[in-house]
């Protein structure tokens, strides 16, 4: 159901509201004729935690970019709540949809980490107090405390990624899109990113991630959309989509390591994380196990 509200100029109200995302029969081709989206429809409710997977060229990044208005559908419509993306420019849409680029260097331009993170809220004309509070929270969540005065380009790529994330989080958008959040990150950083996503989900944000890291998906997301050749091949709870081995492999997605291990050991349940694996292995242990 579409609620026809006048868009509110006061940003203080917008962050409080969740927005339903509707993608209706969207087609998109790049100049030169590569069709990246070949008729995609989906709905994402406020507060959902969604991973989009699929091989390189499946249309994942293009889908993400029509959601935040960087690209406009050639055919079909994209709605973010009551906003039709065709009628709003990227800077307006940025109030509702935050987009963390795959490569932080595509995104960073300020001289210090603090300025970079504070740029978004100030640019959205939030009050100085609110800007400061959002900046502080974003820096805390990404564990950047103590690095505020450094130049982002003096930080390692891992921490630059955190700066890129913090600068989007500080805009307090109800919808957040992460393009390949774990690419090039080490084990500790991947855990930190998992924590950030969980905390955003808890606070009611809609979180959408595009990723090749299927193990990360299994451990951190609830719904999974599998794309291939510009179409949606599968869409459902992670435990269901990950059971569809053949469809996954048609778009070059391998099942997560623990899912495969569970299947090889004959577990009935689709295993998503190590806690589930340990429960399953304890259950299948014969009661009179030898020392």
């Amino acid at each position, binding site marked *: 159901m579409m609620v026809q509200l006048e868009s509110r100029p006061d940003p203080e109200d917008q962050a409080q509201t969740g927005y339903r995302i509707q993608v209706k029969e969207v087609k998109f081709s790049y100049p030169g004729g590569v069709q990246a989206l070949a008729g995609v429809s989906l709905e994402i409710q406020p507060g959902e935690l969604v991973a989009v997977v699929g*091989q390189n060229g499946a249309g994942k990044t293009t889908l993400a970019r029509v959601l935040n208005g960087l690209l406009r559908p050639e055919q079909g419509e994209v709605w973010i709540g009551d906003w039709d993306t065709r009628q709003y420019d990227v800077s307006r849409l940025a109030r509702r949809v935050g987009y963390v680029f795959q*490569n932080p260097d595509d995104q960073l331009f300020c001289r210090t980490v603090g300025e970079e993170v504070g740029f978004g809220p100030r640019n959205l004309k939030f009050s100085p107090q609110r800007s400061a509070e959002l900046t502080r929270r974003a820096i805390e969540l990404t564990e950047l405390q103590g690095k505020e005065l450094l130049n982002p380009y003096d930080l390692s*790529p891992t921490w630059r990624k955190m700066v890129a994330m913090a600068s989007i989080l500080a805009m307090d958008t109800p919808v957040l899109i992460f393009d390949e959040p774990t690419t090039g990150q080490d084990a500790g950083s991947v855990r930190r990113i998992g924590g950030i996503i969980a905390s955003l989900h808890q606070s009611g944000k809609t979180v959408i991630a595009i990723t090749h890291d299927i193990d990360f998906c299994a451990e951190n997301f609830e719904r999974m959309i599998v794309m291939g050749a510009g179409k949606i091949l599968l869409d459902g709870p992670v435990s269901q989509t990950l059971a569809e081995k053949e469809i996954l492999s048609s778009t070059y997605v391998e099942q997560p*390591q623990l899912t495969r291990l569970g299947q090889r050991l004959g577990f009935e349940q689709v295993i998503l994380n*190590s806690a589930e694996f*340990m429960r399953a292995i304890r259950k299948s242990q014969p009661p009179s196990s030898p020392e």
Partner: protein
Amino acid sequence: MAIIEMRNLTYHYPLAETPALHGIDLEVQQGEFLAVVGANGSGKSSLCYALSGFVPHFFKGKLEGQLNIAGIDTHQSGLMDFVRRVGLVFQNPFNQISGSKFSVYEEIAFGLENLAVPPTEMRARIDAMLDLTGIRDLADRSPYALSGGQQQRLALASILVMQPQVLILDEPTSQLDPIGSREVFQVIKDLSRQGMTIVMAEHKIEWVAEFADRMLVLSQGEIIGNGKPSEILSLPQLPEHGVGISRYTTVARLAQKEGLWPSDQALPVTLTEAVAGFQEALG
């Protein structure tokens, strides 16, 4: 004979107080495939830069100790000496692409043009690279109209076409899907079998375990492990140093604490090893 020899190599970036590399001793044999793992900031990229001459000849700073690679003594040489013998594939392909070429084909030609390779030879070498890296159908596209994964393949092709003796790769598959990554790993493995020496910084531990001959673990600029993947990956202290271990190792370690992993078996790195161990434990 070793094609790479480092003796007590220590490097400070300009103005940095702590060294990015500290007291590194390393030998790599010709044709060896060495994988370098470690947390971000552990010194992997700095090591790659030192091996390809960017440290210190581009980044400046202070380099102490000895480094000899493919007959080049880094203290006695400049970047141009490295270019013909050592190739570096950057972590971020965007930083590597020349920005002056309008097609993938011309981009691959860029390095050869600078070395004044005759056109007929150039065409043959470029054609071979387009096939080897699986980007033939992208030859006429702009380097900037490629996906992240496609750019990474292009970055690899533009370096391989130079036929380096030593190939240095800084996370070359970070933007590729699993099948694409496997293809790239396979290409690199084949090149090492043909005698090219490979040094690759990488986070994808299971793949390193499958493809590399040897693994080097860095932490805070120092070597903390150097050996066969199977030896390195069972080191209990790896997670403390921010090195990811495979989910198979993680669950086997948990199971071991509860007596659910066979006491006489090493912790698994691959699916096959994990299946075998757990099947034995379950009887």
